[in-house]
């Protein structure tokens, strides 16, 4: 059986961090597949291992045990082949490079010719709506704009998989909602699969085809909820009953029981 159509296939994946006080199990028994082009969110409280799982997929850390394949390859090979792009909670832009220079960084590292690079940077800046800011420096941009630069950089090599670790976590609510809508558009246009780590229930539901609910001590997947909200994710969706119903479903999955206190997150 070939797994090349699966963006991510994790089977029995676990991660243990050795510490002086003994081993800490960050993640255990993870079974997860992400289809090509699918949008999947990982949600859960602090310490549930959602970021750890993303770092394993990105091969920024190695799994202690289990099998992890990205488009049918081991994670390390997928990283070397640049099958994924990644964006973090901090935009992580290099302050001495312009917006264009930051977007071009991966292309430069992989030896793309200068003219081809310039063309690609122009395309990407347009995709994230920063055409007029290409010569600015990161310290001249707002937090939301910096994060858009980071997304453009992640998309530079036209990856089929986009990994995002709470990319909108540090932004205000208005910017957040705007960038969420932008992200669904960009994901649709590029056809990339997305694995998106968040601790916001509405964000997870609004963006995702499936929401993976995780739980701490030890970090594991406790539930996977299919949103079935269709391909169009616009502002009207945020006020639809179907959306609220899914938000409630994810909330109940997170708390392990129907929520009685409505004011609790």
């Amino acid at each position, binding site marked *: 059986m070939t797994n090349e159509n699966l963006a991510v296939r994790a089977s029995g994946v676990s991660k243990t961090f050795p510490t002086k006080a003994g081993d800490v199990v960050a993640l255990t028994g993870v079974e997860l597949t992400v289809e090509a082009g699918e949008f999947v969110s990982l949600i859960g409280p602090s310490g549930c291992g959602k970021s750890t799982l993303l770092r394993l997929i*990105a*091969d920024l850390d190695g799994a202690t045990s289990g099998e992890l394949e990205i488009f049918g390859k081991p994670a390390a090979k997928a990283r070397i082949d*640049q099958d*994924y792009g990644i964006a973090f909670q901090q935009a992580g832009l*290099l302050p*001495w490079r312009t917006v264009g220079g930051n977007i071009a960084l991966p292309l430069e*590292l992989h030896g793309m010719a200068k003219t081809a690079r310039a063309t690609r940077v122009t395309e990407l800046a347009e995709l994230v709506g920063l055409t007029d800011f290409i010569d600015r420096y990161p*310290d001249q941009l707002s937090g939301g704009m910096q994060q858009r630069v980071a997304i453009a950089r992640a998309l530079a090599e036209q990856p089929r998989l986009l990994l995002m670790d709470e990319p909108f976590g540090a932004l205000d609510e208005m910017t957040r909602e705007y960038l969420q809508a932008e992200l669904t558009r960009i994901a649709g246009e590029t056809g990339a699969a997305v694995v998106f780590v968040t601790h916001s229930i509405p964000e997870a539901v609004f963006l995702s085809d499936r929401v993976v609910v995780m739980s701490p001590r030890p970090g594991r997947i406790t539930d996977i909820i299919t949103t079935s909200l269709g391909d169009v994710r616009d502002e009207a969706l945020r006020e639809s009953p179907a959306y609220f119903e899914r938000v409630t479903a994810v909330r109940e999955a997170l708390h392990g029981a129907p929520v009685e206190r409505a004011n609790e997150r």
Partner: protein
Amino acid sequence: MHRDGFTPPGWVRVVAPVAVGVIILALWILIVDVLEAAPRALPSPVAIIEEFIKRFGIISEDMGITASNALIGLAVGTIVAILAAALAATFRPIDGMLAPLVASIAVVPIVALTPILNTMFGASSQFGRLSVAAIAAFVPVFVNVLRGLRQTRPVHRDLMRASAASGMQTFRVLTLPTALPYLLSGIRIASSIAVIAALVAEYFGGPADGIGTSIATYAKSGRASLAFAYVAGGIAIGLALFLVTSLLERVATRRKPV
């Protein structure tokens, strides 16, 4: 300290130090020239300026000697410091080997080594003075560069790994630019130290030239105004080097981290 309190307008920051200078100069003239209350070793500023202009030929010659000693020492010390810091940052054991050495260099008054170095390289050579300036400049550059090479942020390191960057690429694209402001801070600090070291080293022998030698000679022979004119020349060297290196540092740090 309340930071939101009164901030003086821009012109005050320029005028205030100038005013202080003018007041001190006026007091100096008052005490020396008008009241004639100063000892003979303290000449009038007017006399110092006159000497400086009249003897500018020989003063500038000696300034050239001391300045080139300081500059070459600064350059050599900086290059050696960068190489040593790069090694120490890359290989932990080398860091452990260098740390006590650098600490001992930092606490020993380097100019005290001058008589030894002069004997080693011959009293007619500038080499003893040069090496004193180089050793003195080495320490702040080494300490700052080593620190700078360790300032890369985790998010940037993750980014480089996720982009499948090689070790060399990571060094060129991330580690080096991150360390650059630290390097320039080190050079700025080292520039003043190098001038002081080169000048003071002249008091401990070597060829009969340079600012320090002249100050000692003319002070001893009672030509106080000329000695002070040489002091002014020494200040000019230090100030020029400090201004240039400060400017370089400002250029390198104009982009705030985000």
